[in-house]
């Protein structure tokens, strides 16, 4: 095999990274890129299915989605957007230095990319903990159980690593509008202020047809006909949180896989594998990393920011 290849190629220069089925490096690189892009197109459709679910349900129940969105902390979401953008920059620079064959810069930048990827996952963990403590995990019984009698007892929620018990307890005091309702069975919960969005929309007469049916009591219910039914509204907010957890969870899974790829890339870069002539694995891993960043670029406004103008605008 080796001798056969040698006789075939003895007359011209053969780049070390060139596989025998390709004419030259240019063709090989393009084939690698095409393969990765076909995979990414599949990923677009994969996340696209979830974005379609989002589109369908949000077009049905925009006010429930706005209420759910306002339970998310746009600060953490925005911070994570910036963290991912920085990691995309370090990834792009990794490819740049791989093409230059600069091993030390590759290693430094891959470590930085992994660091920012980990920060992203850490922030996600903080957010998920907060959802657990505030009863917005959409499965009944999976939230923190808060006894009904005497709301001000010892702090029992998860304590974050940098938080002292005292500061965590102070956080759970009912200051601002962050009051934690009793939740003895760990059910999915919304707050009274969420229903104000429905009243507001009703006053402005821009409820959708689905909302007119989906938020209000009817003859079958115990409430008088046409009143806002908190339980029915809560179930529509629950749809938002299902979508939130599935989409951000799947995105976080992609980040975890990305970190695994980066670890392998770090090893290869350490061994001085990549040069101006062979850098396809770096380029391909970069495409994957940037794709995950792009998904978040859309998730951030669609999940975290969609109801904020109801809180800040309109003078109420």
């Amino acid at each position, binding site marked *: 095999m080796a001798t056969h290849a040698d006789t075939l190629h003895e007359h011209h220069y053969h780049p070390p990274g060139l596989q025998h089925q390709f004419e030259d490096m*240019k063709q090989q690189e393009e084939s690698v890129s095409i393969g990765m892009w076909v995979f990414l197109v599949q990923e677009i459709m994969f996340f*696209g299915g979830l974005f379609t679910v989002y*589109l369908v349900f949000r077009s049905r129940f925009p006010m429930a989605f706005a209420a759910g969105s306002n339970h998310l902390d746009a600060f953490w979401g925005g911070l994570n957007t910036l963290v991912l953008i920085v990691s995309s920059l370090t990834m792009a620079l990794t490819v740049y230095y791989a093409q230059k064959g600069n091993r030390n810069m590759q290693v430094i930048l891959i470590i930085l990319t992994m660091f920012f990827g980990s920060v992203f996952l850490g922030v996600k963990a903080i957010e998920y903990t907060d959802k657990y403590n505030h009863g917005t995990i959409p499965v009944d019984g999976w939230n923190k159980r808060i006894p009904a009698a005497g709301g001000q007892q010892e702090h029992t929620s998860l304590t974050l690593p940098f938080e002292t018990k005292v500061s965590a307890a102070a956080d759970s005091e009912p200051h601002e509008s962050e009051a934690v309702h009793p939740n003895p069975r760990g059910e999915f919960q919304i707050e009274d202020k969420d229903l104000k969005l429905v009243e507001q929309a009703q006053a402005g007469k821009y409820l959708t047809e689905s909302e007119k*049916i989906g938020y209000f009591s009817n003859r079958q219910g115990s409430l008088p006909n046409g009143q806002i039914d908190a339980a029915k509204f809560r179930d529509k907010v629950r749809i938002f949180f299902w979508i939130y957890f599935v989409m951000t969870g799947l995105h976080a899974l992609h980040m975890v896989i990305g970190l695994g790829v980066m670890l392998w890339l770090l090893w290869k870069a350490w061994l001085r594998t990549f040069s101006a002539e062979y850098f396809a694995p770096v380029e391909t891993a970069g495409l994957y990393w940037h794709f995950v960043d792009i998904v978040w670029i859309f998730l951030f406004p669609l999940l975290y920011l969609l109801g904020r103008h109801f809180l800040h*605008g309109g003078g109420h």
Partner: protein
Amino acid sequence: MAHQADEHNTHSQTQEHEEHIGIPGYLGVFAILVVGTILTYFAATIDLDFIFPGANTLVALLIAFTKMTFVVLFFMHVRWQSRLIWLTVLAGFFWLAIMFAFTMQDYLTRGSGVFSG
């Protein structure tokens, strides 16, 4: 567009590896992405419903599409790739648009009930 791509093909035959946009270019794209993120955040706090209901979402998506375009063209190097890769990328978004359009033409034209238009 086509002319540009032709120019690129002849250019890349003479030069094995392009510099792409270099470090200042990457930092420039990074700056645009950061500005886009900050802009998204503050645009979301202003009530734009006086233009038409849902104007906030449109603005947010326009900024997100702009950010995505910069990432795809420069960080993912599609700007310098062959037309075959351009086609692959665009096909991805085309099929996505088909999925959205065909799903919504169903949901938006239903009769009565919770899933009515």
